[in-house]
């Protein structure tokens, strides 16, 4: 295992295989807790803790766990980490815990985490698995933060609770409401596609649309 290989595993999670933008995983916490940047970061950190921890364990014991019960074992491992995170947050930062509410326990069900165990940690050596988990978690964190920041800035005129535009700013309430989550993520994905899209393909597409008759 060369050094740069594990580095690669790390990087790919942040951009190319970003769990949210590219793989569309873990959407529920992504949308549910991103109405402020702080919540987004807290959630991201909790997820990172669980993901990295369970990837480490799963990868370490990958040859011991029989295939037939692997899912159950993964779930037990993940749930244990989540419970740990849950109680820790509750003890240390009860305010944040209240905001995140049920979504801390729901990390268990985050498809991203189980998905990574299935697809990666259970097949690759520990070091790579941890790097992969770190990368994915960072990617997730980045996604959470960008959504949380946008929603907080527009929805509250503030970032991390600091007012940015003065008192007479009219907040965009929708940003904090559920539809705002969907719409903002949709628009962010649109920009993500825009970057990924090869420019000439786009032009081709336009040309084709124009040729196919109706001007749509």
């Amino acid at each position: 295992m060369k050094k740069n290989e594990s580095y690669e595993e790390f990087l790919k999670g942040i951009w190319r295989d970003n769990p949210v933008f590219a793989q569309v995983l873990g959407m529920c916490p992504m949308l549910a807790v991103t109405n402020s940047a702080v919540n987004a970061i807290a959630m991201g950190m909790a997820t990172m803790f669980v993901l990295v921890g369970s990837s480490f364990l799963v990868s370490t014991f990958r040859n011991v766990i029989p295939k037939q019960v692997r899912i159950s074992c993964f779930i037990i491992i993940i749930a244990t980490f989540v419970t740990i995170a849950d109680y820790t947050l509750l003890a240390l930062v009860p305010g944040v815990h209240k905001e995140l509410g049920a979504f801390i326990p729901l990390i268990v069900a985050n498809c991203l985490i189980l998905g990574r165990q299935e697809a990666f940690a259970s097949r690759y050596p520990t070091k790579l698995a941890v790097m992969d988990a770190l990368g994915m978690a960072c990617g997730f964190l980045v996604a959470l933060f960008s959504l949380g920041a946008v929603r907080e800035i527009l929805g509250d005129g503030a970032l991390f609770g600091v007012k940015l535009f003065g008192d007479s700013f009219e907040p965009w309430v929708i940003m904090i409401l559920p539809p705002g989550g969907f719409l903002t993520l949709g628009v962010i994905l649109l920009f993500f596609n825009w970057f990924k899209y090869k420019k000439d393909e786009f032009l081709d597409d336009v040309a084709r649309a124009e040729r196919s008759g109706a001007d749509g």
Partner: protein
Amino acid sequence: MNNLLTAPAIMTGIGLFFGTVLAVAQRFLRVDEDPRIEATNELLPGTNCGACGQPGCLPFAEKLVAGEVEPGQCTVSTDEAIESIAEFLQVDAGRAEKLVARLRCAGGSRQAHQIAEYRGFEGCRAAAVVSGGGKGCAWGCLGLADCERACTFDAIHMNANGLPQVDTEKCRACPDCVAACPKDLFELVPLNQHLYVQCNIPLAGEAATQLCATACDACGRCAADAAPGLIRMEGNLPVIDLAAGGPPAPEAVYRCPTNAIVWLDREQFQDQETRKARNA
């Protein structure tokens, strides 16, 4: 504290209980199914294109596991994927010769004449139903890109001459373009077959060349110049029969007056600009 005992006890109990239930269920409720089918299916591309001759990827996987077909029959998979399936199933890859789509027409807008002007929905089949679409040669390419749209692998691009140019790198020999073309102009041909007839017109002589500058006028020179038996004239067109004669050599095309038969390097219409160039 008793918590210290209850927690592990409950958890172990639950683990034991459900472990047992599931294990027992495994035994008694088991539906026999070769796990390799699922695994093989996952290794297949999942496009369900039917190029392998099976109705979809899963049936192909079933046949693969049953040993009735060879992994190489999936033309869509990459070589590595074929290899890993073969390795997994411990069978021979049976990789067939690489096939690519070739166009049996070279009459683009510069070579073939139009007798009428088509107006309407852009598409070859759509044009073909309006009295043939206005192209003089009723057998030739209409150039309205149904094949380009049909190709899922982005292997076809219309060139500036109005002909579909196949990128042999990208072509996976799925037969989508073959099915899409209303004039039945595409065929799958081994990539290493260099000798190729790029014309489909059953007319002979001037009747043919009047319609298209690159039409085969059925002069028969290629048949005469090729190795005996390799090319025969059939329905006013040369037919290359590798089984009946051989070996192909470029000499066969030298005397063709219209370039209807060609010696291909790799791509067809290499000398023509692609449409992208026009866009730029």
